[in-house]
């Protein structure tokens, strides 16, 4: 099907670009590491408090690293107006957007897995690794939400005079529900309490579906 072909072509191109340039992933991962270190200086966690703060710290790091990374991927398209080769092709705005969401999601998830591992090492918190499979669904849903809003907003902000610098400012307020949902569900999983867990997953799903549909409709206006 035309849509799938176009989307796959663009995703492959994005992955190829990253494998060549290696800019985005390394930037995001180093930033994550740095943030984790700074958090430790700021909060001075010990074995007792680490499980309380872990979800919060992790999702803040995901959000900040993530948005910096997504800003970069958008700049790569803007550089030399490369994205025009997609615009002046039969590829629809919908496939362009979907492809970008998928590639950004892949980069985000990679960064998050590495961050979780780094956290487990730096703070001696093995529970994170043991429980990781259970954390995956909420990680996936939350990152998808980040990717949808991040992809849409990075196209918004990179044309403005302020460029990537505006992006976190636009992004963070809007993804507040994801931060809340992600942190709360991670907290519940780690503390092994299932009370109210499903409603948080539901809010993530609603967010993702609503914004994916909305963005697919609106994206054409940004091109």
């Amino acid at each position, binding site marked *: 099907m035309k849509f799938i072909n176009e989307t796959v072509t663009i995703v492959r191109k994005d992955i190829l670009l990253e494998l060549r340039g290696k800019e985005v992933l390394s930037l995001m991962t180093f930033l994550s590491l740095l943030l984790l270190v700074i958090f430790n200086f700021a909060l001075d966690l010990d074995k007792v408090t680490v499980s309380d703060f872990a979800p919060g710290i992790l999702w803040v790091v995901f959000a900040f690293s993530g948005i910096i990374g997504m800003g970069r991927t958008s700049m*790569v398209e803007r550089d*030399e107006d*490369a994205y025009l080769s997609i615009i002046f092709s039969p590829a629809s705005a919908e496939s362009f957007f979907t492809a970008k969401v998928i590639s950004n999601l892949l980069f985000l998830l990679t960064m998050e897995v590495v961050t979780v591992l780094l956290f487990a090492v730096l703070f001696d918190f093995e529970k994170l690794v043991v429980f990781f499979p259970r954390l995956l669904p909420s990680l996936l849903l939350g990152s998808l939400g980040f990717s949808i809003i991040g992809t849409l907003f990075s196209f918004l902000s990179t044309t403005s005079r302020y460029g990537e610098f505006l992006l976190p400012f636009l992004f963070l307020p809007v993804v507040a529900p994801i931060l809340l949902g992600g942190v709360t569900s991670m907290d519940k999983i780690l503390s092994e309490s299932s009370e109210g867990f499903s409603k948080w997953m539901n809010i993530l799903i609603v967010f993702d579906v609503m914004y994916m549909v909305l963005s697919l409709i609106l994206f054409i206006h940004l091109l």
Partner: protein
Amino acid sequence: MNMIKLLNVGKVYHSRPALKCVDLGIEDGTMLTLFGPNGAGKTTLLKILAGIMSPSEGRVIYSPELSRHGDVRGSISYLGHKNSLYNELTVLENINFVFRLFGRKNGKEAIEKTLREFGLWERRRDPVRELSQGMKRRLAIAKGFITDSRIFVFDEPFTGLDLRWRDTILSGIRALKAKRKTTITCTHLLEEGYELGNIFAFFHRGSLLFLKRRDEIGLNEIKERFRLLEEPGR
């Protein structure tokens, strides 16, 4: 039958009226060349024609044939001031990417032929950032030719290219005419621009001064018009 029609199009850009009251109809199979001094609004006009900039006033009307692929821009090939290339990917990867986006397969021969024509075959595995300015320009143009679009828009295609390549580009664009494509070119090179057009539009300070066919105006007259504009105290 008009492929693209501009009705009273105006554009205000950076607090300046870049275009004023432009009425222009481009028929199927036309080769249009835009002439005019710097700042006349030619690039702005090309961007509006290609659909990547919206006019502040007036409308752009496209023939329904162009929307066959969905968005009108799917039937247009645009070469702007920048080359629209991915610097980290190789020559071959850039061209393959576009080829696949157009849903085409088995392009090996066509791609090789085009790359050889533009002197890029030897460098096909090199990333674009390692190429010279001229090579990048040639690749950008080659990429456009390979798409086989209905309409071709060229904004200063000869930038950074020496004489040897100008001829290649010229014959490439002329070949488009044989394929009954519509081309819209803007260039500050008067001879080449005259060669490439059968209709000429002269712009100055955002206004369309005149629109003449090849049999109505000669190259010398166009040169004369330019000289008049450049005179001090104009």
